[in-house]
């Protein structure tokens, strides 16, 4: 008991004598975490810029997120960050920039495969089908024949270009069973598109309106038939009654309507063909996009 009291007294004496020194030592220990805090608390540090960039990315403020990521990336290359920059452009539908950013991944990169997939996806969505097909065919995975996703995307994109399709059974075999029927229909359409021949339409227009009816414009066809018929009748009638001036006016009008009927039938058929091609391509795009271009979709924490 005496020893303890003696120690306490001595300590008190020591503290009293050295109070200033002790305060400084204590302050140093108190400031130590502060120095660390300054590093972490620096909102412009790479770590904090990255955190802020991720926050913006999750908030879908991609343009600002890119700025933050790029500031960090400029000092240290980081695959994930580069991928996020490219994805940000992709999500803003800036496909050209997204492609260029995905293109920066080298085969040594751990995210090369994902970036390659995204490049194909970007090209598909920007409707650069031929370029996408060439890139798929040049990729190692395609030549190694070990990526069914790429084959599916490639085949589907061929429906949208003039590329020659493989045999039907081969074309369809790579797809899921539930997709085979619709792809079979697409294949048939592509091989034998239900186009109408503009020349046939023009020939049919010898009988006014028939070419238009052939081009699925039944109302226009009937109008064309009635008008041309009427003016021709009037012209003949005038000639028979020796009313030369009127007769020639009506002859001119019927010739005008008749030639217009032939030309109109020709263009109506072209329009018809363009319309059904547009609808077909739209259906294919919807089909492919519904399946995320057959490629695995990258997921981020906030997705």
């Amino acid at each position: 008991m005496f020893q303890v009291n003696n120690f306490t007294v001595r300590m008190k004496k020591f503290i009293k004598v050295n109070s200033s020194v002790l305060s400084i030592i204590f302050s140093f220990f108190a400031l130590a975490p502060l120095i660390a805090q300054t590093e972490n608390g620096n909102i412009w540090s790479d770590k904090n810029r990255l955190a802020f960039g991720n926050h913006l990315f999750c908030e879908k403020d991609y343009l600002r997120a890119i700025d933050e990521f790029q500031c960090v990336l400029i000092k240290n290359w980081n695959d994930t960050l580069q991928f996020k920059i490219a994805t940000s452009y992709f999500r803003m539908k800036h496909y050209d920039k997204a492609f260029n950013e995905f293109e920066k991944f080298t085969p040594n990169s751990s995210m090369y495969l994902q970036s390659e997939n995204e490049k194909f996806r970007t090209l598909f969505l920007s409707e650069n089908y031929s370029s996408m097909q060439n890139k798929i065919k040049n990729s190692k995975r395609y030549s190694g024949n070990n990526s069914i996703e790429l084959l599916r995307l490639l085949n589907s994109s061929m429906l949208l270009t003039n590329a020659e399709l493989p045999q039907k059974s081969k074309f369809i075999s790579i797809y899921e069973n539930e997709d085979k029927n619709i792809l079979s229909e697409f294949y048939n359409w592509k091989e034998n598109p239900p186009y109408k021949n503009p020349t046939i339409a023009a020939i049919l227009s010898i009988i006014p309106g028939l070419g238009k009816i052939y081009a699925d414009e039944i109302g226009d066809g009937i109008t064309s038939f009635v008008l041309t018929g009427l003016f021709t009748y009037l012209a003949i009638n005038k000639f028979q009654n020796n009313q030369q001036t009127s007769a020639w006016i009506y002859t001119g009008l019927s010739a005008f309507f008749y030639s217009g009927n032939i030309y109109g039938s020709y263009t109506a058929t072209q329009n018809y063909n363009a319309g059904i091609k547009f609808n077909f391509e739209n259906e294919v795009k919807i089909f492919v996009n519904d399946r995320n271009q057959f490629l695995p979709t990258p997921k981020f924490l906030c997705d």
Partner: protein
Amino acid sequence: MSKKIVILFISFSSIFPIKAQKLNNQKFFADSLFASENYFDAITEYKRLQFFSKKNGKYFESNFKIALSYKAGGKYDNAIKYFNLAKRDAKLLEDSIQIDLQIIRTNILRRTIPEALFLIEKFEVKNVGRIDTSLINYWTGWAYLVNDDWESASQEFSKIDKFHQLKMLSDSVFSAKYSVPLAKFISSVLPGSGQFYTGNYWSGVFSLAWNLFGGYLTINAFLTDRTFEGILMGSLIWARFYRGNLTNAEKFAIKENNKISNNAYKFLMEKYLGEKP
């Protein structure tokens, strides 16, 4: 002993002000960007401020400034989103009123006029006795004005002052505008007169000439007992020119009215010194 306490206090307290200091600096930086009208960067820095000052309750001002920046940048949907966020954190009634007005003004700029009018009505009911009614009339007038309804705009501005500058402007625009139904009506009586009324004289002359020609052919055919030909001429030629004449009269009246409105909007944008949405 007291000396020790002071040193210890400084040591402890110095940990916290650093962060607050940095956030203050950040706020100052964002404010300076906002003040220099560098709105894109201002938004980034306010968002950064918010991100690093979580739980510090600094959302009202930053959200409000973000909203104003978006508004200035023409991103009205985002502006409204952030005004609403600012409103959520507003503690003072004046702030809340200010935000409500900004939302109304943004809707006017966004040309979602029914929404703006609905919000004005709601705002008026909510703040009876608290706000000057001239404020309500002023923004209602602006909503009508942007909606190209100059007569209603004039009525609203006249409630503030019978000689209010915007009332005079609305009146002058309203009186300068052509009546579309009148243009069509007079053209239906005398083809081409609607075009004359709107100052498109050549079009009026051609319209009249074509109608006279079509009318002559038709009437002449009937008078010479060529009934079938008369029907054909009337329905295919005369009717076509007559319908074209009516369409033209309407089209020109609308076109000229748009010109008048656009000149007024140009004046409001460039020369009007009062408060704008």
